[in-house]
């Protein structure tokens, strides 16, 4: 894979490790060790002292050493009947994660691609792109304030939130966007799309620039219209890049914390995995369940880790 080091630059066996040591030490301490420690703690009780199975109570369901995982997976779901379980699943952190991934990933990729294609045809491309890209530089907290203001809902008097002002101007009733299930999760996802479309746009625009001009010209000469050129020539050529963007976005979405924490705190059925983990850890002070939730998170991410490594190896092979 990696480019071989020139023979002449070979050095002793020890020297490389001096260069690597600082990085390896901090990485082992802050990433590798916590990774394994988290797995260990997820099988222990709330203080990390006793095995998780000791927290089981008589006559209650119990998964033995996996007791924390029972809490992590099932606590939010009402198991009394299949119908109730189905309904509660879709407002649980896992159900919401599915909505987030479906809408956020498709939303950002479609917006990014649309913008990448359209913006390069106008003279104010740089300015337009900078505006789409701008939310990337803003903190999620700042974005939370911006959008809570857009979604603001007053019970009486003038609507100072833009969205409700538009609704009342059109003669409709204002809506409490962030408290109304299921619209509130969609409203949060819109914030996510607003923040991340710029990322997708930039990467996809770079890929589009690499599409050979001759192929596009040839297609046009053959009478293809702009839509055909886009869907039948450009998209297939940049498909590998689109895949990369999609995997990156799925990972980012799975790890999402700040938007939900700031805008609803995970209330009103908007919970996501990372917020739930934070709450178990730092509000309920239950290390066992908190770490179990994060192990579930890493399990969901693992397939994408392998995708990442595969892509990396493929990249190295063509270097």
């Amino acid at each position: 894979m990696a480019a071989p080091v020139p023979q002449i630059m070979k050095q002793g066996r020890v020297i490389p490790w001096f260069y690597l040591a600082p990085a390896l030490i901090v990485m082992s301490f802050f990433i590798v060790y916590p990774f394994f420690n988290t797995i260990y703690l997820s099988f222990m009780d709330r203080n990390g002292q006793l095995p998780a199975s000791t927290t089981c109570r008589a006559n209650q369901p119990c998964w033995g050493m996996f007791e924390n995982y029972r809490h992590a997976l099932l606590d939010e779901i009402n198991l009394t009947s299949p119908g109730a379980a189905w309904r509660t699943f879709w407002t649980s952190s896992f159900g919401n994660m599915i909505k987030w991934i479906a809408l956020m990933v498709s939303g950002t990729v479609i917006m990014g691609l649309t913008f990448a294609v359209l913006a390069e045809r106008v003279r104010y491309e740089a300015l337009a792109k900078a505006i789409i890209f701008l939310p990337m530089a803003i903190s999620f907290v700042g974005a939370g304030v911006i959008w809570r203001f857009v979604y603001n809902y007053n019970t009486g008097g003038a609507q100072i939130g833009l969205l409700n002002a538009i609704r009342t101007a059109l003669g409709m009733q204002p809506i409490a966007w962030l408290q109304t299930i299921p619209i509130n999760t969609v409203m949060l996802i819109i914030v996510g799309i607003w923040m991340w479309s710029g990322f997708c746009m930039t990467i996809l625009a770079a890929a589009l620039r690499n599409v050979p001009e001759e192929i596009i010209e040839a297609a046009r000469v053959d009478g293809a219209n702009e839509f055909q050129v886009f869907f039948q020539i450009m998209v297939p050529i940049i498909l590998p890049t689109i895949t990369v963007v999609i995997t990156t976005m799925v990972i980012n979405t799975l790890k999402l914390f700040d938007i939900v924490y700031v805008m609803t705190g995970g209330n009103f059925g908007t919970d996501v995995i990372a917020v739930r983990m934070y709450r178990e850890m730092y509000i309920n002070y239950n290390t066992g369940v908190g770490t179990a939730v994060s192990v579930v998170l890493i399990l969901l991410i693992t397939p994408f880790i392998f995708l990442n490594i595969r892509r990396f190896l493929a990249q190295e092979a063509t270097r």
Partner: protein
Amino acid sequence: MNLPKLNRLLRRIPLHLVVLALTLIWIIPTIGLLVTSFRPVEDINTSGWWTVFSRETKTSTAYDQWCSSCHGEGQDVAGVDLSDPAVVSELNSALRLLAFMRRGHPDISQNGQMPTSQEAADIAATLQGLTGEEESARFTLDNYIDALVGYRGLQTYTSDCADGTPPSGFTCNFLRDLGNRRGMGRAFVNSLLVTIPATILPILFAGFAAYAFAWMDFRGRQVMFAILVALQVVPLQMTLVPIFRIYSQLGLNGTFLGVWLFHTGFGMPYAIYLMRNFLGGLPRDLFESAYLDGASHWTAFVRLAMPLAMPAIASLAIFQFLWVWNDLLVALVFLGSSNPVVTYQISNMVTSLGAGWQLQTAAAFISMILPLIVFFAFQRYFVRGMLAGAVKG
């Protein structure tokens, strides 16, 4: 203009409309925040920020809303005797306002219910505007002053100080009050204290490691680098608990050092990945000839690799800077209230302390100003860094 040219122009109109519409949708929420942060608090809560662009004054709508029932449609309020109890009793909110304003006055305060400070300010402003008693300015810097010093009173920091009644905990010496724990001024400094070392350290460490990965030969080089790629994806949340437990034992919770180290460790995989790809892409002859000329690895690293890697370092520095500056989770867990940073301060305003929009919007803009400057000044490097590898997050 000839016909084909005109034709072409017309055909491009839909394109321009779509691009402009999307761009507008994207920027409007931010403009709303910016405009709001400069409006007086009573305006913010009674009319939308977009009304500042219209000629229409808020008086007429406010009048319809509050006063048509008590004075009759179309009647001018200026002629009404606001001290007439019969008139005032028509208007519940006005009564509550008076009860508030004349707290302690026996015949009025018996009506009980006190308005919240926000309501009182709104009502007072509305009434003052209606009676022509006071023409309030359209824009003000008070929100920024209040946010910077962390003022949470009924008026504004400036007016309280002008009245000679310093709010509790304040000295009315602006520079000294900037140090207030609840203020954005102090938080801004804290954010800088967190961000600068947390940007330099990982780049330094990553520079060494990336050089080794690119131009040195050692066992396990490839396997280690593949692991590094995997580590980029490990979610931050997963590492918080174990580190928090260790930090508790070491007494590092709530210290800057703890946060610096955490960001260094966590920024490392991406930083090494990016730098290694850049260094590995440099021409091999360069290093070979340097080595033939008797340069050691150390010389090659300091004199050759690092100066040449400046573009990569710039991308990385911008990324890490924005990442650390905008981070909430790490600051929340490891710094918390002992050394509040800007994101922590705002999230507190939003979630628990319930500060008004005037403070939230000003504080949000204070937190955004530095990232925006960095972003616009170094957009080129930012984009380049993003293209060089997937963004961590």
